[in-house]
């Protein structure tokens, strides 16, 4: 099976993505690895795709999204890096691969994903739920089960499709939805790309819900997953091989969530320690922390989230200010200063 695997990120996440692609290369040297980047390299950093652990780069601006910069302005960095997953997967269906797999840049493989290829022999769409076992304790239910109810049953740090049949139909639908509705707006039933996928088992056939606990292990399901490292060298989750881990929220927030649910299951901390060492080893100090080329107005001032929300909610503003990044007299930014509040 010819597989194309991609991740979507900005240069701030290049270090994490490098770790992911290194692990992909290790276990799947035959897969085509593509980096989908919604950013431009910062000054002082030389980006040489040939020396990166992926095969090629696709810039989001080259996906043919109409009025790309204006469209992008309506999203914050998380929203847009999620939104571009849709057009990419839709277009990738026509690039000759039998299957396309998406993985978040903060995931990493600990063993082969070959069983997924086998699943794709009989299924066209694979999704991993946040939880495959219900929690019993009140705090865990609040933190995990109800969080998944708000943000989506499936974690879209992973999705795999066949590029034909129901897989292709899903890609087309996801493309359409994410181009128009990929916002973090939970009160309106939106959480970027995830809430949409709650519909997938109802809208599509040949959907496989991957309930194997070795996939997409993260702090939100640690309360029901026990990690073990055997003297044979295998790493298992609830007795089955660990396939990939989702190292969400690298830093104090992630540490706190992990401690809360890993408790004294110390192999979890070994795994995190490894991940932190790997990320540190491939972090390029020439990339400023929090860098994002589309995060500022033309004059360098940061674009506030509320400005983006206002702009996307007001067609009149979109019509009046076709280049919302501009600064100076007559620009959206100037209008904000006087009338936008």
């Amino acid at each position, binding site marked *: 099976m010819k597989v194309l695997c991609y991740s979507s990120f900005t240069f701030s996440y290049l270090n994490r993505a490098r770790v992911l692609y290194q692990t992909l290369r290790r276990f799947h040297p035959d897969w085509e690895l593509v980096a989908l980047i919604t950013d431009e390299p910062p000054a002082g950093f030389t980006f040489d795709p040939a020396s990166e652990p992926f095969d090629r780069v696709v810039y989001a601006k080259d996906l043919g999204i109409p009025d790309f910069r204006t469209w992008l302005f309506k999203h914050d960095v998380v929203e847009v890096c999620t939104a571009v997953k849709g057009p990419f997967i839709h277009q990738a269906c026509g690039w000759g691969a039998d299957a396309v797999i998406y993985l978040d840049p903060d995931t990493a493989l600990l063993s082969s994903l070959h069983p997924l290829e086998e699943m794709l022999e009989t299924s066209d769409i694979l999704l991993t739920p946040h939880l495959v076992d219900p929690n019993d304790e009140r705090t865990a239910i609040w933190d995990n089960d109800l969080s998944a109810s708000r943000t989506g049953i499936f974690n879209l740090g992973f999705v795999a499709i066949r590029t034909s049949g129901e897989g292709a139909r899903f890609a087309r639908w996801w493309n359409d939805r994410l181009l128009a509705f990929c916002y973090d707006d939970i009160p309106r039933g939106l959480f970027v790309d995830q809430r949409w996928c709650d519909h997938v088992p109802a809208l599509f056939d040949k959907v496989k819900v991957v309930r194997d606990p070795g996939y997409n292990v993260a702090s939100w399901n640690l309360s029901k997953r026990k990690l073990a490292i055997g003297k044979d060298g*295998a790493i298992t989750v609830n007795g089955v091989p660990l396939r990939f881990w989702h190292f969400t929220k690298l830093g104090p927030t992630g540490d706190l969530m992990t401690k809360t649910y890993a408790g004294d299951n110390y192999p979890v901390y070994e795994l995190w320690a490894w991940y932190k060492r790997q990320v540190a080893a491939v972090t390029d100090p020439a990339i400023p922390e929090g860098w994002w080329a589309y995060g500022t107005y033309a004059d360098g001032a940061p674009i506030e989230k509320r400005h983006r929300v206002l702009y996307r909610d007001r067609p009149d503003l979109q019509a009046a200010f076709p280049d919302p990044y501009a600064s100076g007299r007559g620009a959206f930014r100037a209008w904000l200063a006087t009338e936008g509040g």
Partner: protein
Amino acid sequence: MAAEAASDPVYTLLSTAVDAAFYRAVYPDLAEARVDPVGHYLHSGWREGRDPAPWFSTRGYLELNNDIGAAGLNPLHHYLMQGWREGREIRGSGLAPRYYAGRQATEADFGWSFDPGAAPRPTPPTAVPRRRAAVPPTPGDRAAVAVELDPAYYLGMNPDVASSGADPVEHFLNSGWREGRDPNPNFSLADYLEAYPDVADAGINPFAHYLAAGRAEGRIAKRNLGFRYDVIAALPSMADRLARVAARNEPPRLGSAADLAAAFAASKCGLADLHVTFSHDDYTTNLGGVQLCLQRESRRVGELGRDHLHIFPAWAWPTVRTVANEAPVGVLWNEALVGYFAPALVAQALGEALAGVAPGRRTFAVHSLLGHAAQDVLALLAAAGLREGFFWLHDFASLCGGYHLLRDDVADCGAPPPESPACTICVYGETRRAHIGAHMRLFEALSLTVVAPSQVALDTWRAGGEFPHAGEVVHPHASLTPAGPAPAPGKGPFRFAYLGVPAPHKGWPIFRNLALRFAGDPRYAFLYLGKQPMPGLPIEAHPVSVSEDTPLAMRDAVQELGVDAAMIWSLCRETFSFTAHEAVAAGAVVVTGPDSGNVAAFVQAGGHGRVLPDEAALAALFETGEILELARARRNPRLHDLTFSALTVDLLEGGRP
């Protein structure tokens, strides 16, 4: 004064709030006069505008509350009696910053550094980060904390507080909590603040919050992450580890070929008979079980009239070297240090010294390749015309740079395949190829007989690698010889002891936690025998130091103290455990875990104690009292003498005495 004070309710109340250490520190005129800080503040200090504690400014209170000054009231007394209830504002002492700065400077003198192999010092408390000015303690806080703070624990964990004579409750309330000093073993300030940012934002004492509200709200007092979490959190990468070791070592002054030639010229046998050894350090200055064995080997070589050349890395280095002639080596010639030289120079000088000398009995043993490059070892042996020799399994450096086979310093790994997921994530995983490669080079170029100090060490090595070797020998470092019954034990609690270096990989946190859990249980006494002081723990510390002159010091101490059982719970598989042999020789039994290698094998083979599946099983033995079955009074043990081996010499023709 004290009698008068005790009957004075004002004095009593003020004594709960006046910080004596602060008062003496910021008013040295009073310290020299040796006045009682509480009495001084009560009678005159407040009138002089002096501050009783870092958190309370006398003048500040009067400025913020005009009515108090007008009424001529003692500001602190007023605040403690009613001001706090009325929500009156206070201001911290202007002298507090200087006071804390002075304290930090003093505490910084107790700097600590990582030293592989040495016992870690207790982790210094981490100061609680200040998000806003700390709220001073209320009388309610004071009363609750006074009941729940464990004074013995607090003073034990904070020797500086104990030596200052400060009251632990006062110290904790006034400054200790901000300095991250936990009030008892079951509450963690750091955990509480990390989990509950609302408490951190409020600037209140987390323990007081927990007692007043948090406990009832179901908040967690302390995370049970286990000691392995702490080890992993502090685990340096290999690159950092090597950089740290490199930074610690000064380049030695290198000797010349003439120095070596002069040393070799002073031969016992005209250089005909020669024994060459390699190890990771200078066994004449660093003392440990293996070093003491090497001393015996060297002495026996001398007694046989042969010359002994020992090569060790000039700098202790935790991995093999991969580049030839990269780092200097130390040279011991017949137990005397000749100096430090480039490895190639030693090989050349030895070759020149031996040229034309008819070889007699020439032998060699590699005790450790740590810090050596295989190429350097091969070059030197070639210069001596040596190819057949011995390779010792004192550790498992031939399988991994983590030569204890302790994955991430927390769990026995069993030396799985280097490409396994476990080795992928282990901090030592990246060293495996270099270590296996360097040793393979030796084994392929030489004809080596592998010598293991225990069968379990040999079995592990066989399972973990496939090195071509000429033979295998199991040769223990020590053996037991019966020496009659032990004297009748005295009465008293069951005496459970930890022997040796109190390090995590030796299971020290397991013993410490057990002692804390059963502190005060009249059935048990917990003892520590070793070199470290043990302040603040419910553990009797007895200094014991083993040296070449007192090789049986540990055995003698175990016997003298009437230890019933010794906990030797190495997390890593020991290739040989002197400590276990010493304990049993003294009439104690050994309690150990499943991954302790030679300890568990020795216990099982000789019926010398218990091998337990895990730490929970150990705690259960104490909970039920089943451990009491191991008391001397129930066993009537025998004593043993310990006979030590001379390592390689025992294996040489004519080597045994």
